[in-house]
């Protein structure tokens, strides 16, 4: 389940944010603190998560303290789904 989240969100970031479809993003790679995802793309990411996993991320959670890696984001989604 978690692998599926990671794979799906990773593919989304590679395609839509980085424009590098062949890119594989590692589960522990920093996304926000590294500057890979900027604030404009964060809103898109939140909407993507909501549409695909039916989990709502509040705008106050869109920061590196809440999640900075795919791994952390997947955990967050899993905890909300339960």
């Amino acid at each position, binding site marked *: 389940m978690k692998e599926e989240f990671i794979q799906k969100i990773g593919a989304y970031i590679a395609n839509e944010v980085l*424009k*590098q*479809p062949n*890119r594989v993003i590692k589960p522990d790679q920093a996304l926000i*603190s*590294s*500057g*890979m995802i*900027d*604030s*404009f*793309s*964060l*809103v*898109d990411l939140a*909407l993507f998560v909501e549409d695909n996993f039916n989990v709502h991320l509040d*705008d*106050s959670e*869109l920061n590196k303290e809440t999640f900075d890696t795919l791994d952390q984001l997947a955990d967050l989604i899993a905890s909300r789904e339960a």
Partner: protein
Amino acid sequence: MSTFSELLINSYREVPDRVSITVLLSGQEDRPITYRQLVEGAAVWANTFDRQGIRPGEVVVLILQHGFDLIFAYWGAILHGAIPSIMPFLTEKLQPDRYRADLTALVGITRPECIVTYPEFEEEVRTALPQQSSVRKLIVSNALSAPETLDLQAFKGLQRTEQDIVLLQHSSGTTGLQKGVALAHGAVLNQLNSYSQALQINEQDVIVSWLPLYHDMGLIAGFLMPILKRIPLVLLSPFEWVRAPARLMHAVSKYKGTLSWLPNFAYNFCALKTRDRDLEGIDLSTWRAISNCSEPMRYESHRAFYDRFAPYGLKESTLCTCYAMAENVFAVTQGGIENPVLIDEIDREAMQARKLAEPASTQKPSVKMVSAGKPIRNVEVKVVDEKGHDLPDRHIGELVLRSDSMLTGYYHRQDATEKAIRNGWYFTGDYGYKVGKDVFVAGRKKEMIIVGGKNVYPMDLEEPAMEVHGVHPGRVVAFGVFNEAAGTEDVVIVAEVDTDIQEERDVIGDTIRQTVTRGSAVALRHVYLVDAKWLIKTSSGKNARTANKEKYLQETSSSEL
């Protein structure tokens, strides 16, 4: 005529309990600031500047986040007669090297006497200062000294005259920070008088703004005009708005907002990124003018915004336009207040090949140009050719202007001032044309990228990218590519690298992204790594950005990215 300090003190005397600003911050109660509180809060800073030996006429650079400290420190500097300038604050931890470059650029040219920041940034700012700099005092926000009593007459700002410089405005980045637009009290107040007349300001008006204060649109339209003209201001944070654009609509609905200013990208951003759920119960019918300003205006962006928010009471007549620049304090033209914004459909080929804005015929491809409106009172606009000769209607040339609200000069930059102002006319570096009194902006001469309403100089992105290990020194180019869906430009960096191993290229690409984003707060949309000798250079060895942009567009459109 008057000065900033006199006007603020008058408001304190005449309407002390009127709310001037309502500050909206996430997770906190909305906090109103009355004129009394504004003057009292600013007085603490004015007293601190005085105690620290800062003299009227000296420059105070504010490195503070959007919020109360920034508001009070700004007005404190004004009341003390000092000249405030806001330096963009980076949200992530500052990257010392880049920040040092920016500060050095600012300090080297502007030669400020004082810098204000938070205690946690003191050390970082201190190490970034060059040795023997002009900065005599570094004031931290928790070391303030309140005056024993509030003596309104004692403010040294009251001794300033109309001709004195009241503030400096910089654009961001190392290059932008080297050119501070110096504005006099009289120039700003002339602008506020003629602009509020153009906007037909009335008693019901409430301005709602999320714009950053280091930018002219946020500083003038979304801060100084409402405070000085006693128009209630509802102030949101740009960092919070970008994560939840519906905050703007909530604020307009709750406070019966009537006026806002938005850069073009924000129309697309709001339209695409708000959910119905976020808009429940919202009423936007009070909004009477949203002025599209600070980046190229797109007809499609207006349509998308209107279609999205019309069900919540947004009126079509609310969509206004404005052409503005810090060198004229702010507005040059305003459209959509008296009459709907004029849309001019012109022939694309004639515009591109012959620099003519010919009305479109039905068979040929066309472009819908959005009028920026007519010059506001006291501003004259002309279109001139390369030799500076006036051009007739519908001929595309450089826009030049003359007014009673122009800059005094670029601060300590006589050279740049002389280049920009010729015979009393300011050469904007923007291309455009006129139809009667309506002004249309159709491109720009300067190699600036405008992304999300922010002006970015390509060299400020190229320089940090060149320092990345694995990138050929001097073989980097940055430019903007218009993105239809986003309604703004995407920033692209093309860099020559040696390696053709994909993993190594990924590392280089990520490092470029990280270095540039953290150093300039501009997010790169695409880092395009190429082999050696890919970039086209001009004979002088200078970067030929346009040619490289065309080559990039050809390659990326013909192959998979």
